[in-house]
């Protein structure tokens, strides 16, 4: 069987693990479902049939939701992505036209993809580094960190709300509080909101501000690392940096993997803050026109449902590739407790 995680460990940090864990169960199940010999105990088949019926009864709301609201709509949207469709007239098949247009004849999409990738691949690592740094700071002492943990967590609970977007818009406007505060130190930005060069850094800053949920998960992971490991490393003459790279990082790698996976995927879905800060335009100069904003504008403002479906599928494929790469490289850098790797 699988190694047992210490109680209270971040069990769900290992999404793959769960799937892997399920395999033996499934195999066992298939075996028990199929009569292997004729000397089977009477009633066993009836019981397994009853179990299956009960399973599907409990699962029925989820099944309806999964097929009705996720699986079938996804297939439908794949079909729509090969059509021209404006919801009023029936979809017209256009083959690969939408995709060809996206990549060869739509500079707005290319820019949108670029700024989204910048936002995701710069914002997520910075957020994770900040989260880990603050988590280590909180973990430095055993007591008294509870208040700070909660205070730092608060922004990630409300960060995606319209209210916060409005606050940030006010704070980062030209001659707003942030601008004035910085000019006190002799730094003159000249406004962030209307400034194409500074709006993306500001959006990343808003992302980093929500480091709290990642930090809380890191902190739980740090608490699981046995103190003896640090003591042993110290005895061997390892300095603080060496202890960080040789003990903390490997022991934390399942948590890092989990945070990285969900962080990257989550960052692709930034919408509300960009929409509110730019008043739904994706401006200035398209610098907040993230892929989700562009998808919304194409599908719901311009009524190009087919084209927007193609954007959605490009997003899906990109996210799937990132998840695939992460799961594939996992073996080489993620260390699970109980493994001898």
């Amino acid at each position: 069987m699988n190694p047992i995680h210490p109680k209270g460990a971040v069990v769900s940090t290992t999404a793959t693990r769960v799937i892997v864990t399920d395999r033996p169960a499934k195999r066992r199940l298939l075996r028990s479902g199929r009569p292997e010999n004729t000397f089977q105990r009477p009633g066993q088949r009836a019981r397994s049939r009853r179990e299956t019926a009960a399973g599907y009864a409990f699962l029925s709301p989820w099944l309806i939701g999964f097929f009705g609201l996720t699986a079938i709509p996804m297939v439908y949207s794949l079909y729509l992505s090969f059509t021209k469709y404006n919801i009023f007239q029936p979809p017209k098949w256009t083959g690969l036209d939408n995709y060809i247009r996206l990549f060869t004849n739509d500079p707005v999409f290319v820019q949108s993809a670029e700024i989204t990738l910048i936002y995701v691949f710069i914002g997520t690592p910075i957020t994770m580094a900040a989260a880990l740094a603050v988590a280590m700071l909180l973990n430095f002492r055993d007591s008294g960190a509870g208040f700070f943990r909660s205070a730092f967590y608060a922004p990630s609970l409300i960060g995606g709300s319209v209210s916060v977007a409005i606050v940030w818009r006010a704070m980062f406007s030209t001659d707003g509080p942030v601008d004035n505060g910085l000019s006190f130190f002799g730094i003159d930005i000249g406004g962030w909101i209307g400034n194409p060069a500074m709006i993306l850094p500001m959006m990343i800053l808003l992302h980093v501000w929500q480091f709290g949920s990642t930090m809380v998960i890191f902190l739980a992971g740090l608490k699981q690392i046995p103190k003896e490991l640090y003591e042993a490393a110290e005895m061997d003459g390892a300095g603080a940096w060496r202890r960080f790279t040789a003990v903390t990082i490997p022991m934390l790698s399942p948590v890092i993997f989990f945070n990285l996976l969900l962080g990257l995927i989550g960052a692709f879905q930034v919408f509300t803050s960009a929409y509110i800060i730019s008043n739904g335009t994706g401006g200035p100069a398209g610098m907040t026109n993230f892929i989700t904003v562009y998808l919304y504008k194409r599908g719901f403002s311009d009524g190009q449902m087919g084209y927007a479906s193609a954007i959605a599928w490009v997003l899906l494929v990109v996210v799937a590739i990132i998840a695939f790469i992460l799961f594939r490289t996992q073996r080489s850098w993620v260390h699970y407790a109980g493994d001898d790797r």
Partner: protein
Amino acid sequence: MTSASFTDGTMETIEQEMMPAVPATPRRRVKRKTWQTVIWLVALLIITAVVLYPLIWLFFATFKPNSEFGQNTGLLPENPFFGNYAKVMEGIAGVPMWRFFLNSFILSVAAVIGTVLSSALAAYAFARVQFKGLGIFFAAMIGTLLLPFHVVIIPQYIIFNQLGWVDTYIPLILPKFLATGAFFVFLMVQFMRQMPRDMDEAARIDGAGHFRIFWSIILPLIKPALITCAIFAFIWEWNDFLGPLLYLTSPENYPLPIALRLYNDASSGGADYGATVTASFIALVPILLFFIVFQRFLVDGVATQGLKG
């Protein structure tokens, strides 16, 4: 990396202090510990101030008259003004503010009921029943955990539009009753798997069926997970912007986030900043109260289950 270097720094000072030939007396050790704690506390207080500044700024900004926006960027208003609140209570687009609150409340409560019920049922099937197809559907559920929601908004909109449900709450609430929040299902599966099986096996020998076991044994056992899910379902629905933006068209149906957008759009024409920030603040108040009351549940839920806020 600031805090990492901070820790390094204190480590070094410790070593330096250890250096002198005179062995460290207990009193010196205490003193060193105190200093360490003071530096630690100061660093954390600075981070707290930076992190919470936007919220504190928002609170004080609600007392600034319109004339101070763009002029007074400081924290405190020069002439405290309470008119913003009165103005916001009147509402916008001919709809009073209490109506937006009520709409948000209805949506959030419905989301809580739907999410908790349907997710618990699905989680029980995944965690406690052995049936054909379990492995495949579980993998599918994990898949939807990673699926960007934006991929399905267009087909879902077309379906709900065809059914004539646009500008009703059905497209916003129905998915919650169909366990589409994979996070909640996953969290409850994790919780149920940790529960010992002795009790439900005993109940089964006594002739209890699955529903009985679910209702009388499992649900009471996973109460902490249910509460965590309920709080998150409430807050996420309260904050949800995209769903109402897609489906609701008449102002009297709007929840708070869409009403805030009306304020935001109106103020970009150069008008009412005071009303906009005040409306933003009072929309956050229930969430902040929720957070203060249930912070332990929320933060521990995130910590133990890896649930992202």
